[in-house]
């Protein structure tokens, strides 16, 4: 027991509860599988639907873990993904830079966007949620303006990645990348100073500043790390989908709502399992659940989102069960 405690951070949490959760997850999935008459857990369905559809929400959730870590609830992430992914596609296709353009651009764009939100929140002192919404409008608008300009010149408004550039979005590459990102995220979150400091700030801001953790510095570094992770998610997303059209009026919120639910589930379980692991489990669960609903005939974009909303509400209530302060 001592040996595992030193080697892996997450078994500092009760091992028994972790096994319980894993069993619960497996049981729920098996139940859903049985209800669908054995259709859900076919190799084809798993590799074509469940796992690939878990990639984007889970990776974005990991990014949210870092960005929301100090309390900055930034919902412009959806718009950032659209902007970053499309700029990557533009550089890949229109500028002929291929994979180089596709991979480098989203990281840079999304990091800049996130730093802009952090600037509004930290230095202009705009409340985090308003900063996120306002910047979200701006990021969306930039994409819309570009789309509107392009549709006048190039005929088509949306840029599509050529098939030869979409290997990152296909099985098994996308899932392998997700696993690699998982390992990196896990190590950063549990085994680096920035991860430890972030958890400390989230757990007890008073003690953290008393031991000398610089909140602002940690917040900025965490936001950059989170933005890089979201950048990876953007690349994976456009590789899978081929194109992502611009949105307006903060419709981009819907694109990250699943990720938000995954993040919230992971947060409410964080006394049982480490958040990166929780997010992975929650991502797979949510994807399985929605796959189950689709097989059962419930259309995407309808009741599935209603269930998501209910999940977020339940998590929101659970998170505040022991909270004694003023809630607004």
């Amino acid at each position, binding site marked *: *027991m*001592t040996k595992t*405690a*030193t*080697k892996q*951070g997450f078994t*500092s*949490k*009760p091992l028994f509860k972790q096994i319980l959760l894993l069993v619960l997850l497996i049981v729920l999935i098996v139940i859903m599988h049985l209800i669908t008459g054995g259709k859900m857990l076919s190799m084809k369905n798993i590799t074509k639907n469940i796992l690939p559809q878990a990639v984007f929400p889970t990776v974005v959730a990991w990014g949210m873990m870092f960005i929301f870590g100090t309390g900055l609830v930034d919902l412009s992430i959806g718009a950032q993904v659209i902007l970053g992914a499309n700029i990557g596609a533009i550089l890949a296709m229109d500028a002929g830079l291929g994979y180089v353009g596709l991979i480098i651009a989203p990281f840079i764009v999304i990091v800049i966007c996130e730093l802009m939100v952090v600037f509004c929140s930290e230095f202009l002192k705009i409340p985090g949620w308003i900063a996120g919404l306002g910047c979200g409008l701006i990021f969306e608008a930039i994409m819309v303006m570009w789309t509107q300009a392009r549709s006048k010149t190039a005929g088509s408004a949306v840029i599509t990645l050529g098939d030869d550039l979409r290997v990152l979005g296909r099985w098994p590459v996308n899932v392998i990348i997700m696993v690699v990102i998982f390992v990196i995220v896990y*190590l950063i979150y549990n*085994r*680096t*100073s920035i991860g*430890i*400091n972030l*958890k*400390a700030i*989230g*757990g*007890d801001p*008073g*003690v*953290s500043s*008393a*031991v*000398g*953790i610089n909140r602002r510095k940690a917040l900025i570094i965490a936001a950059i790390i989170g933005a890089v992770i979201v950048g990876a998610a953007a690349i994976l997303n456009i590789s899978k989908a081929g194109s992502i059209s611009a949105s307006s009026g903060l419709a981009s919120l819907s694109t990250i709502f699943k990720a938000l639910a995954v993040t919230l589930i992971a947060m409410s379980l*964080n*006394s049982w399992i480490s958040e990166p692991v929780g997010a992975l489990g929650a991502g797979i669960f949510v994807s399985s659940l929605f796959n189950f609903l689709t097989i059962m005939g419930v259309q995407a974009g309808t009741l599935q989102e209603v269930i998501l909303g209910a999940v977020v509400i339940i998590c929101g209530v659970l998170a505040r069960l022991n909270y004694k302060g003023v809630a607004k």
Partner: protein
Amino acid sequence: MADIVLKTEHLCKFFGATKANNDLNLEIPRGAVLGLAGENGSGKSTLASMICGIQKPTSGKMYLNGQEYAPSNPVDANEHHVAMVLQELGVVGPLDPVTNMFLGRTGKFKSGPLVSLSGMKKEAEATFEKWNLTKVPLTGVAGNMSIENRKVLELARALSIDPKFLILDEISQALSHDNRKMLYKFIEHFTSPEVGGTILMVTHDLEEMMEICTHISVLRDGQIIDTRPTSEYSMDELKRLMIGREVSGDYYRADREEMYQQDVVLKVEHLTVPGELNDISFDLHKGEILGVCGLSDGGIHSVGPALFGLSEHRKGNIIYVPANRQLKGPKDMIQTNGAYLSKDRDADGLMLDASIGQNISVPNVRLLTQGPLKFLSPARVNKLANKASVDFEIKSSGLGQVVKSLSGGNKQKVNLSRWLVQDLEYVILDCPTRGVDIGVKAYIYGVMKQMKEKGIAIILISDELPEAMGMSDRLLVMKDHEMAGMLSRTTDFIEDKIIEVML
């Protein structure tokens, strides 16, 4: 010439208009165990926080080992080998104990890009070994540790930076007998000539202080009353210096008789709040001023919220006798013409960014409505606010002045007037003259005397003994969350006797 390790010179810390530390001059010799004695609010924690770098002084200087010492933050203090275990801090719950010990310094344990958890654990175990501390379990999360184990962990954390000056703030009250023994042995070892450390200790346990400390410094109202070697104190003198105050001025009641009407307004039976109050019972009579006093953490400040109905898991009965009505919650007290003014007027009473008029109106609007639609006429509201402002002599540039810009005394007048302008039958006042200048103090006592004459019953909760003695008919003394005694103005109001009961 004694070897002075820490010296403060005219050290002051002001928070806006409040003087938390006022002109402190202290010399701590090396190897001493200096105890800081004083009530809550006396300035002990402010002094400790300045020495360990959490706060910066408003003025004055500190010298460590003869050199000027002005830590910009706790880490800076640590680098000067000053470490602390503070009461309000603690550990970060979601993290494991070992990470908590080295929080903020995890960069020192890097192997490659990652932090070596095993490296940290080895260092942690070595620290426990070196100082002979009780070996607390280092697995699990810190939030699940017992309070005792957490305190030992915090001590280990402080020691891991290899300090020469150690501040211990209320550490022993969390510890069991065995752990206390370990602590005392540690203190002895730490301050021995071989190790050469010095300790600053804050504790409420006066017996412990007399036993362990080599010197004791008494603080009161932000100033140091005296600093002497322990041998030069007697327990009684220590208590008196801590609590007694010069009664300057004659603004309390002139009479010495317990005087009130027969009729009971409130009957309190077996009032209990787990962790805060244990079986409190008393009757409150018309025209009576019932004082409640005791050491600040003895439970006196839990009485108000319990009576008002804001405490959780409250048991017992509170009965408004004239209507035989049980007071179950705030609404009941308000509807039976009662009011409760909490000790913390800024957080619990006033809307600091709103105007005087708006603040005065809030408790009164329900009484000013007209008609079934509950129409609230601004003219009526203004009229009442004006009346209150005039009646209570609130010094301002007008009802529109923002409360935040008022002095403490005027703020308290706004706080009081918004309630006292009503026709109340009973009031609970918790530290009504806290942070208020002499003139307003006298004024408030005058108002209380007038209320008493009108037959209004007052519960006066106060951590200032002279005030409680000066104004009350009867004094409910609380100790360790229980009633230690009910004293009568006529026969029992002798300072030493009351202090005896309190401590």
